[in-house]
């Protein structure tokens, strides 16, 4: 079985060749270790660069938090995009792995959103003097976190993967339609209550020596997400196989149909 050297961003979702789980599991086993290596490498370089960069004259040392905050925020949104494409895969193309992809992306999406919130609040604290300020970005990420947790609860609440796939896909899409509305209302809400100093989360136009570490860290986060996502998809497929075997064992224990 010749596995084309799929580069790490070629998700299994789109390729119909990978529709059946067995070939997908083989691909994951083939790709997972090089990906893990690349992730570790990217993190090493990223961290080294972010610590060797001089202090930013405006925001003092805390700008280093940006190297962690901004990639988390990007990946939080990236995970939701993965879920939306998974949801479309389920509802439109009925791709068997689409739900597996969407379902395994959700926990990491929630983790990155949580990280975005924590690092954002840590970054702002010196300026604002409090741990939480109803700043537009932080607020919309808080709402995104609730949406993620709701989806994770929905996926685990419904026993049958076939049904939970389509129901979760509907909620993912309705959520996706809502995110711009929420973003718009939160921006309006926060600009109305003008806080003392609005911290510009994505920072002023970044001087190049800040941009490179940021991009490398972002790449590291992306590689990590891809690796974890593929591994989580593998776990999900194994979980479903276990479930099928258990039901088969239960049925044969009942003597089965005539």
């Amino acid at each position, binding site marked *: 079985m010749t596995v084309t050297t799929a580069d790490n961003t070629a998700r299994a979702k789109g390729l119909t060749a990978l529709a059946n789980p*067995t070939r997908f599991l083989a691909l994951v086993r083939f790709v997972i270790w090089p990906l893990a290596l690349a992730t570790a490498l990217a993190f090493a370089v990223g961290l080294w660069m972010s*610590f060797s960069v001089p202090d930013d004259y405006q925001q003092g*040392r805390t700008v*280093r938090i940006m190297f962690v905050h901004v990639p988390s925020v990007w990946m939080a949104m990236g995970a939701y995009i993965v879920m939306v494409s998974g949801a479309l895969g389920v509802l439109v193309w009925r791709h068997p792995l689409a739900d597996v992809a969407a379902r395994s992306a959700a926990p*990491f999406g929630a*983790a990155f959103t949580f990280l975005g919130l924590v*690092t954002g609040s840590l970054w702002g604290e010196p300026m604002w003097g409090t741990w939480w300020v109803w700043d537009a970005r932080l607020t919309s990420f808080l709402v995104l976190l609730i949406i993620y947790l709701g989806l994770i609860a929905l996926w685990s609440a419904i026993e049958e993967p076939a049904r939970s796939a389509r129901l979760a896909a509907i909620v993912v899409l309705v959520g996706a339609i809502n995110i711009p509305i929420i973003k718009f209302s939160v921006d309006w809400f926060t600009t109305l209550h003008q806080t003392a100093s609005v911290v510009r989360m994505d920072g002023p136009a970044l001087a190049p020596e800040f941009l490179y570490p940021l991009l490398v860290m972002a790449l590291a986060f992306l590689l990590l997400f891809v690796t974890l996502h593929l*591994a989580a998809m593998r776990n999900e497929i*194994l979980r479903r*196989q276990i479930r099928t075997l258990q039901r088969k064992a239960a049925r044969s224990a009942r003597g089965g149909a005539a």
Partner: protein
Amino acid sequence: MTTLFGTKYFFYIAASYGITAAVLLSSIVFVILTHRRHRLRLRKLEESGLRRGGAKS
């Protein structure tokens, strides 16, 4: 690099990197552990039940 530790911001930077590392590492560990657990249960089921397709991992 050394000047970094003396400043009052050190706490915030350390905290944010620390929490990020904690969350990311725990996700990695979680994924690996569930993978091992599933493979174990799958092997146990294999002896008794019919193997429903899926690569030998």
